[in-house]
């Protein structure tokens, strides 16, 4: 695939990734276990913008993704263009806004311990270590999403469960996790070989 097609023609996957993270977070009560990195808690908070072509729903609040308006937007076919997120691992908390179309992060707050007056190289290394830690987690989550998205299970099982969730029904979380784990177990098996 040419680079332009790869970039422009697959932007929709970013929006699907954000809605999957949202679904995944709700199905697992925020406790995520991305492949190859440590578990973490992750949820959407404060603001989310959902779009379908030129129609836009911009929602704010403590947890706007839990609001009826957010699910209504999904039912209208809108998907998140950007969403503010919080990730907690141990005593570290990261907050940022994920831009779905580029996977770019904005307004990322890092849980730094050092102060700006500390030794400048140490301040830099701490920030990069934290940034790369978050990068690794998001990359692992994205890789899990891609494995699931490109499997037959997406159309057969995951998408119907996500639709059911968007429509206010109570999807079978155990069935979802079993499907996801089966798909990712194949991936992990390949990685081990």
């Amino acid at each position: 695939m040419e680079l332009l097609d790869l970039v422009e023609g697959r932007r929709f996957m970013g929006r699907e990734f954000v809605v999957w993270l949202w679904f995944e977070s709700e199905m697992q009560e925020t406790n995520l276990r991305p492949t190859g990195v440590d578990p973490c808690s992750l949820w959407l908070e404060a603001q989310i913008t959902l779009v379908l072509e030129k129609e836009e729903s911009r929602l704010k609040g403590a947890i706007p993704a839990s609001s009826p308006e957010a699910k209504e937007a999904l039912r209208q076919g809108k998907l998140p263009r950007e969403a503010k997120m919080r990730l907690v691992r141990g005593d570290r908390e990261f907050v940022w806004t994920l831009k779905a179309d580029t996977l770019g992060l904005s307004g990322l707050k890092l849980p730094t311990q050092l102060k700006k007056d500390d030794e400048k190289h140490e301040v830099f290394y701490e920030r990069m270590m934290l940034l790369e830690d978050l990068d690794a987690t998001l990359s692992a989550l994205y890789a899990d999403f891609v494995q699931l998205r490109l499997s037959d299970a997406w159309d057969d099982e995951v998408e119907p469960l996500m639709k059911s969730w968007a429509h206010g029904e109570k999807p079978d979380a155990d069935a979802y996790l079993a499907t996801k784990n089966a798909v990712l177990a194949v991936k992990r098996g390949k990685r081990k070989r």
Partner: protein
Amino acid sequence: MSALRGSLTFARFYVTGDIPDDIPGTTLKRIRANAFQPLSPEDDKSEGFGWANMEDPVDTDLDHEKVFYNEYVCLALRLDRWAIPGPLLKAHLRDAEQALLEKRGLEKLGRQAKADLKTMVVRKLRKQLVPSLKSYDMVWNLNGNVVHFFSQAEKITSLFDDLFKKTFKLDLVPESPGTAAERVGLDARQAAAFAGLEPTTLARLEEG
């Protein structure tokens, strides 16, 4: 936008191409050759850009210690721009036009004369002003060959892309949902599924 303080806003790029093993040893000369050069009031261009010290963008005398932090290449893209306030330019232009008309005994200036006069006024005003300075940090991790560039503005990332390629003779692939998916490492079946992928909607058909 800084990597060193405050909250972070960035775009990621993957470095591709024939990446030398010894980046510090082979690229410092080219980095220095592409360091920021100060704007002159006499220049035709209204902006200029180049590399600067990430810790102090006023410093463009780059050496090993300022650029290479262990496995990281750290630079700032410095972008200076002559920014003459519109009303100031308009007022000076009006006065200059009036003076020229009186001097030549004319009622109206031609298009070329107006353009020449504007160039002269702009250069004169530039001598009384300091260009605006902005800088955007870049951190390239040589272990993973991933670059964090601390801006998402299209124009700025385009300047960065040009300067990076010119300096390092390497390509940059922007991170995006598509390029990130490809980097996951797809097998043949997944690659075929990826090529034919259609967007998901959570709307049910009967709801339109």
